[in-house]
């Protein structure tokens, strides 16, 4: 994802300087006069067969980023390229083909599955949309995919409400795999599940990645899950990536003050509860009017001279890691 990590193969996903904002209010002519700035200049790369985790608190723009990448949220500045092809520039048939190359698994399988369609139709729906398959072919393909995610053949004719949350998520994963996508975006795929079921789904996703070389972009608020699941990680705050790099390095030895706070507050078996001074009470700044200078300055315990200037991502160590803080030692 970070430049220099992987120059061998062309990355599956390249995002550069992506900005997404939504109109928050309009004047009397209907022209927007203020905006919610959800994503503010995000650049990232995911290499084939790799996995990138995006962590951050609610409202930091991680889900909007995922939606902009797969084309569900319009962006006005920046570039999203899948397998080297620009998504926004593509038109017509080419755009449809590009869209088939990426699929998303949402958090809540209850609302992301059409409750009136039987499982085999749900799983083969993306192929049905692509067209050119007979009903028998779709059914056969659904059967293969269902087997791959651990559903039994007799499940295929049932409706989503007959399944538990974990099984519904399996259906959603099978559906996402149906077009053999280059990239799978996983938006909090296990947050709605109990831990024992979460473990089943995590195992399944890792197994599919080993067997089929899938590429994942995982959106999560769960640091422990990202550490377990991902090769690389990017930490988001107020629509910006504040730190990124290999997951074990970033989460083992965070350099940005926000990452440090985030990790200190994550529940853990090894450490006691952080003190109030360690966590620092505070909330995300208003994203209608972005702060000047470093976005994290208000809450930062290390804020000093120089923080009032806008911060760019700085390379640390061997260049695999980046942090958006002028105080981070590199």
């Amino acid at each position, binding site marked *: 994802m970070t430049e220099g990590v992987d120059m061998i193969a062309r990355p599956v996903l390249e995002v550069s300087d992506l900005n997404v904002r939504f109109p928050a209010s309009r004047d009397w002519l209907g022209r927007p006069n203020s905006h919610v700035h959800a994503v503010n200049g995000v650049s990232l790369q995911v290499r084939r067969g790799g996995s990138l985790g995006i962590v951050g608190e609610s409202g930091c723009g991680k889900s909007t980023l995922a939606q902009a990448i797969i084309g569900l949220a319009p962006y006005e500045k920046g570039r999203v390229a899948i397998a080297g092809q620009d998504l926004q520039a593509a038109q017509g048939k080419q755009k449809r083909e590009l869209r088939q190359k990426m699929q998303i698994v949402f958090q809540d399988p209850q609302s992301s599955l059409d409750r009136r369609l039987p499982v085999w139709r749900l799983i083969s729906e993306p192929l049905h949309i692509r067209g050119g398959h007979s009903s028998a072919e779709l059914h056969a393909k659904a059967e293969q995919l269902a087997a791959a995610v651990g559903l039994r053949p007799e499940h295929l004719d049932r409706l989503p409400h007959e399944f538990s949350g974990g099984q519904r998520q399996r259906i959603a994963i099978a559906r996402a795999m149906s077009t053999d996508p280059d990239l799978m975006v996983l938006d909090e795929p296990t947050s709605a599940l109990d*831990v024992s079921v979460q473990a089943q789904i995590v195992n399944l996703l890792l197994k599919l990645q080993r067997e089929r070389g899938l590429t994942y972009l995982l959106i999560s608020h769960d640091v422990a*899950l990202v550490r377990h699941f991902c090769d690389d990680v990017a930490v988001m705050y107020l629509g910006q990536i504040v730190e990124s790099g290999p997951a074990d390095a970033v989460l083992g030895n965070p350099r940005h003050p926000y990452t440090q706070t985030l990790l200190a507050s994550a*529940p853990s*078996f090894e450490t006691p509860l952080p003190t109030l001074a360690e966590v620092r009470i505070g*909330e995300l700044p208003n994203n209608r009017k972005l702060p000047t200078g470093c976005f994290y300055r208000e809450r930062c315990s290390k804020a000093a001279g120089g923080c009032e200037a806008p911060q760019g991502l700085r390379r640390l160590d061997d260049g695999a890691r980046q942090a958006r803080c002028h105080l981070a030692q590199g």
Partner: protein
Amino acid sequence: MMTATVQSRGQALAIQNLSLEFPTFSGAIKALDNVSINVAKAEIVGIVGESGCGKSVTTMAATGLLPKGRYRITGGSVRLFGHSTLTMDESQLQDVRGKMVSTIFQEPMNALNPTIRIGKQLTDVIMRHEEASLSDARRIARDILADMLIGEPERVMKQYPFELSGGMRQRVLIAMAFSCNPGLIIADEPTTALDVTVQAVILRLIQNRARRTGTSVIFISHNVAVVSQLCDRLYVMYAGRIVEHGATRTVLDAPQHPYTQALLRCLPERVAPKQELEAITGAVPNLMQPPAGCYFQPRCKEAIDLCRSRSPQLAGAEGREVACWRRGVGLEIAEQGSRP
């Protein structure tokens, strides 16, 4: 007349062999089976388990919060500071709730009245239970909000719930729960809907205030890591039964029951990256037709014939018990039972 027993016990809450079911048209759902939970004064006790295991039902039954007529107590007793809450009528329960015990729920937006200002919601509770004048109640409310690290409590008291963030609302609810100095606070997944940084603050606030005032806390959570940081002792529930309990560190460092062991093994925190997690196969039993014997037996790798025919009882040393035939006290019986 009841205060005498309170002093002698040193016990905040004693739930004894509580069994409870929800009658439905297709049969009764046996939500709780022989649940015993003891909370000493000034103790922080955790209840962990997956959704549907009966964590919330236990405490809601103990405080009379379950909808009347929709459930049936089939056995057991609950003593809250020596008072039996199961036999109380609604007006007695209202005196108990807020004054002796109060509950912090998961969703603060649902627990606050959206049409009434924060200040009035707080002072109403204080005036109801403390017999304070309005000005006294406002002073108490202001102090306790400040104690919850709410800057400008005066301004927050004039606001409506929708004007506050989730973390602020939860802090208001904690303030409300502590406002009448109850002896016991029940925190039912109070941080599940919140971000980790806010969660850490909320947990600290609950812990600090409880330790300072000697309040007992029951902390209900599905997150074992959170419980490990906060609680002195913990109970593990599965399908309406207590399967294991003991001091938090003992249980988490050396879990005995196969369910507790499996629950800890499926957490990504404890496994090397990309390693397979040990998921628990199968699903939780249908409590309308629970399996014979141990409820965990259909998913348990160590199950023997005895597990499939007889329910294990909690056994072990004082303060550290496990309900499993394959462990400790049950083992000899188990070996005899498995012989033809």
